[in-house]
């Protein structure tokens, strides 16, 4: 289990680096409720990224993706930190709606994975809601094992594919 957790952390870090601009190191999650204004608007017009847009979200949060252990759907410490950064941004832009995609690795059967992906998307939604994001802004969709991002049949690939991805709807 310790080994698996390490791999998960590595995989998460890889995805974060590959998918987004450089990020601050993980910080302790802030308390629920309105986030302090951290000056997101400073990032804006100069580089052409509209504040509150999908691009703004992706460069502002630690990651748009969290990961899960095999056949699990609980939000671990790494995922909490990522979701806290997402909740903070979403609280800053209260009119933005999001979809959370739930995904699985290929080691589950098709129909079970559809249900498991739904479970992962829902636990992600519930966490964001507990951090103050109005659940009516959040829709979920499960892709089961239909849309892997890592194509290998090995532990590292499977770890990347067990994920929930937050998509900002523009």
């Amino acid at each position: 289990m310790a080994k698996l957790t390490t791999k998960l952390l590595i995989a998460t870090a890889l995805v974060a680096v590959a998918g987004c601009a450089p990020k601050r190191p993980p910080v302790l999650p802030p308390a629920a409720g309105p986030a302090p204004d951290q000056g997101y608007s400073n990032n804006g017009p100069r580089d052409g990224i509209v504040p509150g847009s999908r691009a703004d979200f992706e460069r502002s949060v630690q990651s748009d993706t969290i990961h899960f252990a095999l056949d699990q759907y609980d939000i671990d410490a790494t995922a909490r930190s990522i979701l806290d950064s997402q909740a903070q941004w979403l609280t800053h832009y209260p009119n933005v709606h999001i979809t959370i995609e739930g995904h699985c690795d290929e080691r589950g059967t098709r129909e079970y994975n559809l249900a498991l992906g739904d479970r992962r998307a829902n636990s992600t939604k519930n966490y964001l809601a507990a951090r103050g994001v109005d659940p009516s802004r959040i829709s979920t969709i499960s892709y089961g094992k239909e849309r892997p991002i890592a194509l290998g049949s090995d532990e590292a690939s499977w770890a990347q594919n067990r994920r929930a991805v937050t998509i900002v709807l523009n």
Partner: protein
Amino acid sequence: MSHHPIRRLRMALALFAFGTAAASAQTAPSVQTPTSSAAPQALAPGQTPPPLEVDVTGGISAPMPIAIPAMPTPAVVSTPAGMSDQVGRELSGIITNDLKNSGLFRPLGPNMLRPVSFPEVTAPAFDYWGGTGAQALVQGFIKANGDGTLTVGCYLYDVFSKVELTRQGFVVPPSDWRRAAHKCADMVYTRLTGEGPYFDSRVVYVSETGPKGHRIKRLAIMDQDGFNGRFLTNGQTIVLTPHLSPDQKSIVYMSYLGDRPSLYVYDIGTGRQRLLVPNAGLTLAPRFSPDGRWILFSMAEAGHTNIYRVPAGGGRPQRLTNSPGIDTGGSYSPDGSRIVFESDRSGAQQLYVMNADGSNQQRISFGNGRYATPAWSPRGDLIAFTKIGGGFHVGVMSPNGGGEKMLTDGWQDEQPTWAPNGRVLMFFRTGQGGGGAADLWSVDLTGVNERRIPTPLDGSDPSWGPIRP
């Protein structure tokens, strides 16, 4: 894509004017329809050899050698299915392929045998065929009728006893010419094995192309031998897990249309479809009840997935399970009184059986590993499943959980579906890694006779329909 495949196959009950004289020289032929008893018939009086039978229980006995020469035609004419003599050769080729794939026969097909003349069909050269080593002989003919239909005659002979065992005739529209061959193969198979027919049946499945991370999936339907396929959707949305209705007129399946993964009922005749359960969240895992009145499915709500049933024509869903975990993959017993399903309520996927109203839920799988995708045999005697643990493998167990037997040994063999006779299963096999495509395979209950179904593209999620009327 344009024509409608639902057509009645009319049976001409062996009323062949040319054949009666030759046939009456022997014993009067009995005429069987596919629904009549398949029990072996007695040999003609005075015949001493043991009855010609195929052992279906083991994988040990050698397949029966059977000769299937090209079917002659009384006059070579052009038909919408092709030149009649060419169609006759292809009919015999289809019969050869069906019987070979069953694993119970060693056919000598039309390419290995001398052609037979039209009058010879009802007066076989038994001594010649005996010399080929064949124990049984399938002869037939094809004739183009004035009204545009085709008549196909099919005769089964015992080569050693020199008697006709059975015969059938089929009048088909040219578009259904392959069905006549499958019906003929079913006649031979049922007469010699005592098993039910399965060759004249169709499979709905998902045709796949493209990279593993973004597969293009299309709903498709084909004959069970992998031929005569057509696509029903264009691949723009993900489609999954189709199932054919018992009347074979519609397909229930899952589609990501509008990014709302939901169940749809697709009418094969009209190409129209409707949403099965409006205003619902994720709905998945649909299966028809054996009488076609209900559709069993799963619905996810707030992270929990339970099993429901809904009238096939639409209506209010009725909840059958209520567990905090994932209950899915429900499959009816052939009499409709019980349902087998999978649930992770114990902590991992296992198989459970309950009454059709959801009462009396009992776990039946207790082996090492997880169990998923149960499918109740149309014979009622077995439940097929995917077993997870160091890969996926297809196996069977009895409905009370006993007698577990694994049938396949691929890396990922998933989602078995039963042939109409309950002796053969189809499933899909996925390869490892980025190039690992999925293909359709069949295996019979011996576990020995495993074959890839020759679909034009990759394939997954097969669901075998009933024998066609």
